[in-house]
């Protein structure tokens, strides 16, 4: 079996909101897989359906060859789950928390403490969980998801809300986890995170998977595109469109969000010379394609986490 997860046409509706709208995906064993999308894209709901804590309205899911819904006790020891918001017992220290979670899997305190050490929390093992910083709580949360040595790990936005240093530390940890041979499924709204960590990503929006592939491959599909930005207020969007059209430049996604005037183009030359002629180069930024452009091209709008 090389597929750790297969999902086929899953849908979930909350009242008027179609949170997941026909998602199909497959994750290979040992893969680091990302669900990338802005807030409200349906990442968490998709993940919860895969984990088996939410029932899909429609569709079929298989995890390690088994169906996660209804609750499947055979599957549970083989998967590790970290929720978007931490799930700790009240009034417990970090050490007590991980030992408790370990006990659910028949794992003793020594191994639990070793996991705490691994995520670098030995120093704060005696701290109550509600007194811990965001980064510490995330690391404890991940440690609790890993304490029983699962083959398949789900992480829901593990680095959201962390400072850059803490994010980088966590990235190292996540890479190690994957390097040990575990399949990792991660959701994120950070493009850089998906680009750096994931073997493959599914770009999601409005409950749908827009495109799936290795980050580099997704970018390559649109690699000729260059994103150009200047400060807003130098030139109105209408005026820019007029001038560029007159100069015969080819461009897409021209927009002014009040901070920057931005556009995408395959041929930056005419655009840049027009901007220079108009003396509108302040804050100039020229970038090759990134996942952000993939999103832009797929949805026709800027990526906003």
């Amino acid at each position: 079996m090389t597929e750790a997860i297969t999902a086929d046409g899953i849908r979930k509706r909350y009242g008027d909101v179609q949170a997941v709208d026909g998602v199909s995906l497959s994750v290979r064993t040992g893969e680091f897989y990302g669900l990338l999308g802005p807030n409200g894209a349906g990442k968490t709901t998709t993940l919860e359906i895969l984990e088996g804590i939410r029932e899909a309205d429609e569709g079929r899911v298989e995890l390690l060859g088994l169906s996660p819904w209804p609750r499947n006790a055979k599957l549970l020891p083989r998967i590790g789950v970290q929720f978007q918001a931490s799930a700790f017992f009240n009034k417990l220290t970090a050490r007590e928390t991980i030992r408790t979670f370990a006990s659910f899997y028949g794992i003793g305190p020594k191994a639990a403490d070793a996991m705490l050490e691994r995520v670098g929390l030995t120093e704060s093992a005696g701290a109550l969980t509600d007194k811990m910083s965001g980064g510490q709580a995330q690391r404890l949360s991940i440690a609790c998801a890993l304490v029983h040595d699962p083959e398949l790990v789900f992480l829901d936005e593990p680095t959201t809300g962390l400072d850059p240093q803490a994010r980088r530390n966590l990235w190292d940890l996540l890479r190690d986890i994957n390097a040990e041979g575990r399949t990792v499924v991660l959701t994120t709204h950070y493009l850089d995170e998906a680009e750096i960590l994931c073997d493959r990503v599914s770009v999601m929006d409005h409950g749908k998977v827009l495109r799936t592939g290795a980050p580099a491959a997704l970018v390559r599909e649109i690699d000729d595109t260059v994103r150009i930005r200047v400060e807003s207020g130098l030139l109105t969007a209408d005026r820019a469109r007029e001038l560029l059209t007159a100069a015969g430049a080819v461009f897409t996604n021209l927009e002014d969000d009040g901070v920057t005037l931005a556009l995408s183009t395959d041929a930056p030359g005419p655009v840049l010379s027009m901007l220079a002629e108009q003396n509108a180069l302040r804050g100039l930024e020229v970038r090759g394609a990134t996942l952000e452009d993939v999103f832009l091209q797929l949805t026709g709008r800027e990526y906003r986490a």
Partner: protein
Amino acid sequence: MTATDDQPRTAPAPASAGGPEKANAFVGLSRVMLLGFVRDKGTLFFTLALPLMFLVLFGVLYKGGGTSHVKVAEVGQVKLLDALKDQKDGPLSVLEITTYTDENAALAKVKKGDLDGMVSEGADGRLVLRFSQADQVKAGTVQGIMNSLVQTANQEASHAAPAFTLDASKVEDDSTKPIQYLTPGLLAYAIAMGAVYGASFTLVTWRKKRVLRRLRLAPISAGTIVGARVLISVVVALAQTALFLAVAQLDYFGLKLTGNWWLVIPLVICATLAFMAIGLVTGSLAKSEESANGMNQLIILPMSFLGGAFIPLDFAPGWLQDVSKVLPLRYLINPAKSVLSQGGGIADALPSMGILLAFTAVLCAVAWRFFNWDDA
């Protein structure tokens, strides 16, 4: 030392590092719940300190309220009284006799109401009783007692067998002291607080903090979770029982346990289950601790008053007593009172235990109907 401290980042794979060491989910969960209880100052206060304060406070306030003594001054030597003074259980057991030498001082006290009467011995063995009419009940009592004392003495002096005798006994147990109903009442209140809150807050807090859904992803059964919660609530309830009985038995409060007092243990266990089931219902219905708290109080306070936890309801109107019958508390208080200090036995406890378990079953079914793993 410091240099090497940062170094050993050897990442042991937990399963292999675990070796022979084992852990048990039931033990782990029980520990979590016990720690949650002892580390929560609010819970400790409301389930242990406050009810115990009530016991001490009411115990002090009502002390001596059960058998109201008649206070009598003995002025000079009164042979009739002296002869009976040492008999603890005789007719003088309700009399509290103080010896006075100054007749006027004693008389002043009777007038003020500090004493209910004063007795002195006149010439020819005449017993002189002066009493105040201020408290008519006491006035009647003191006259009656003295009268009967004199008659008994006369009769003994005549060496004739009495033609009639009166064998009177109270319908209440011989020594109904306030501590005897305060202890089971306030204990029941304390246990209700502990068990209702224990179950309902565990449910609400764990749901809100997503612990419930996390537990659902762990390979443990609902039985393990419920079992651990029951164990800890029962342990807490038995600790409350031990504490209350220890305090109530202090000489100052003077509770005397009778033969089958241990029956209070199965009673407390059954009642704990019933109270926990109430907590499961409120915990399933409530979305937040605040609303769970409101619901719990709305149930516990009326249940405690109507069940007679704070004041005996023997003289309450019938319909009020009927209301208390649909609430589980009275099925702990009444049999507990009986087995603790009034010589009650299995027959007094068993029906109530059955009723408490029936409450548990019904309330659990209701809770199951509203139960949710998740907020959403």
